[in-house]
């Protein structure tokens, strides 16, 4: 296949390796099935449908693919959790609720290359024995939902979907289900509740592991958009070959979404672990803005713990350990965890030395306070308390004890909730306060009283006045 040409000004960086984003920003590309098929589309479905379903799962396991939605759990292992003696229907759900602040990769797959997702989904359905699949797409992608619905119709007309996929006897339907603007629906059991027509209150695990007790209490596999697309490429290459991309235990490519204070924010698909944070910021993204200095990075979506630019990190090196700086951190799951944060959903938010960390944390706190589903008391109350404290700091009404209180509220949420939202809302506060205590103390001085600092602070002050 000829190397694709890209729209001028939107060419991939020379060190990118584009599998999933191969067709994003491609010259002459459109989301129609004709374009997709002319480029070799649905060939992997033809190949997969002739394989034993179990053999596909084995290929996915061999590939080492780890979920791209946030937790990084091995996809093939997840599929293997469906009880072997199951007699109930199996469902596949594509989690397209992309809503972790800092993450913007699924948007481009859905809008520009919907058939790649559908092909990946039909292969995955066949592998896990699902005859019905849902794409749970966030409400804020109205155009994306239309594109997917049209693409599904096109695929059905060509027998890539429907009662008898490519004459194999395997029947598979995909439906688009739109969310309604709630971040918690990205949590897989919250998503399932939402899909059942209820408030999306996450379910407790155990016993409600979706692979055993999911949608309608049937075995359900919930995978991220990007993860499902990778399945197509694993079939194309074979699991073994795919696993050679990236680094051991951190295989394949992944899309890093960079935003914030860099010269060229955007999406970059790279081999996992082959690019360091420094290369990503300085080379791919053209460096920190206007010659400013790097101050901090949130490496994997807004819930990931912040990394301070001048910190030292101890990571594994061969049989021993070594100390590295922020710019030396390879962008993979395991090293990011060793550095005390997470690779999460691949959303990298860069902050330069002009940023006020209390302002940044307040913005994040406002998000989580808004998005807590309210089911568990520590999270429902705590997320709002954290926001109110940072609101007060920005509005110039902070007191010295606020810094400690802020940390203690966060400590009392994490680990005390039904779902991981508790950690997601606590980690930013815990890490920002621990790593930038002086910045928060600065905001608790009485001399700030009555001097709102920014638009955000103004909003915070209004919020306080209203509460």
């Amino acid at each position, binding site marked *: 296949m000829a190397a694709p040409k890209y729209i001028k000004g939107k060419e991939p960086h020379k060190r990118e390796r584009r599998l999933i984003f191969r067709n994003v920003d491609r010259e002459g590309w459109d989301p129609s099935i004709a374009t997709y098929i002319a480029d070799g589309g649905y060939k992997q479905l033809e190949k997969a449908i002739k394989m034993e379903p179990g053999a596909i799962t084995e290929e996915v396991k061999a590939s080492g693919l780890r979920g791209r939605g946030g937790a990084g759990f091995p996809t093939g292992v997840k599929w293997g959790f469906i009880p072997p003696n199951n007699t109930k229907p199996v469902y596949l759900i594509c989690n397209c609720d992309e*809503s*972790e602040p800092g993450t913007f990769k699924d948007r481009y797959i859905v809008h520009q290359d919907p058939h790649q997702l559908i092909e990946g989904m039909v292969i995955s359905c066949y592998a896990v024995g699902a005859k019905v699949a849902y794409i749970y797409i966030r409400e*804020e992608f109205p155009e994306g939902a239309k594109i997917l619905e049209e693409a599904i119709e096109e695929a059905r007309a060509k027998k890539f979907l429907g009662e008898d996929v490519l004459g194999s006897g395997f029947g598979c339907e995909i439906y688009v289900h739109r*969310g309604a603007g*709630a971040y918690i629906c990205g949590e897989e059991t919250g998503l399932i509740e939402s899909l059942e*027509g209820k408030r999306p209150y996450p379910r407790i695990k155990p016993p409600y592991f979706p692979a055993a007790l999911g949608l309608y209490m049937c075995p359900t596999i919930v995978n991220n958009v990007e993860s499902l697309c990778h399945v197509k490429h694993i079939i194309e290459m074979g699991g073994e070959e795919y696993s050679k991309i990236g680094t051991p235990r951190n295989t394949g490519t992944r899309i890093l979404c960079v935003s914030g204070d860099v010269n060229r924010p955007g999406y970059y698909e790279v081999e996992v672990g082959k690019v360091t944070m420094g290369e990503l910021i300085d080379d791919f993204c053209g460096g920190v803005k206007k010659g400013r200095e790097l101050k901090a990075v949130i490496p994997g979506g807004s819930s990931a713990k912040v990394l301070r630019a001048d910190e030292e990190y101890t990571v594994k090196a061969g049989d021993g350990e070594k100390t590295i700086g922020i710019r030396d951190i390879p962008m993979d799951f395991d090293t990011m965890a060793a550095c005390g944060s997470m690779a999460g959903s691949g959303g990298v938010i860069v*902050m330069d030395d002009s940023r006020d960390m209390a302002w940044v944390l307040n913005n994040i706190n406002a*998000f989580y306070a808004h998005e807590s*589903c309210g089911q568990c008391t520590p999270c429902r109350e705590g997320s709002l308390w954290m926001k109110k404290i940072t609101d007060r700091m920005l509005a110039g009404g902070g007191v010295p004890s606020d810094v400690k209180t802020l940390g203690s509220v966060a400590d009392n949420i994490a680990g005390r909730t039904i779902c991981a939202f508790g950690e997601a809302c606590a980690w930013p506060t815990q890490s920002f306060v621990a790593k930038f205590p002086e910045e928060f103390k600065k905001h608790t001085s009485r001399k700030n009283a009555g001097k709102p600092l920014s638009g955000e602070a103004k909003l915070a002050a*209004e919020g306080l006045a209203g509460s």
Partner: protein
Amino acid sequence: MEVSAELEAKADEYIGHYPDDQRRSASLPLLHLLQQEFGHIGEDGVRWVADKLGLEPINVLELVTFYPGLRQKAPGKYHIRVCRTLSCAMAGCHETMDKICQVAGIDRSGVTHHDPIAISEDGKFSIEFAECLASCGTGPVCLVGDDFHEGVTPEAVGELLEKYD
């Protein structure tokens, strides 16, 4: 609330996407249909969905009050959602919000958590902040109805609003 035959048929099509004994799953799709048609979901809309799916009205109302994407009040002719979250805030979304309000003649001083939408006096535009629209690399971003717009700096606001007549 007059439900057309076309809307009714569309609703039945959505209900068919779920198993026969799981009609409740069609709650959100049906609520979206109503909101698209009528701009918001009123009490009669809640009852219609409940009747259609064999539910109690409260089962539907609790969704309308939970999800930020569902409205109980009619917005303006063009409803604007400006992303408020971190990357867009760093790119200046508060300035964008202020500028849109200024140009469109919207007063946001009465906005609260439970009533987040402000409407211009002439009813042409309404506005609210949205939580992360997932386009963090191109902020500030906003949705006007179903149309998505990137790089909406205060300077770009005038031209943007002119597109909506």
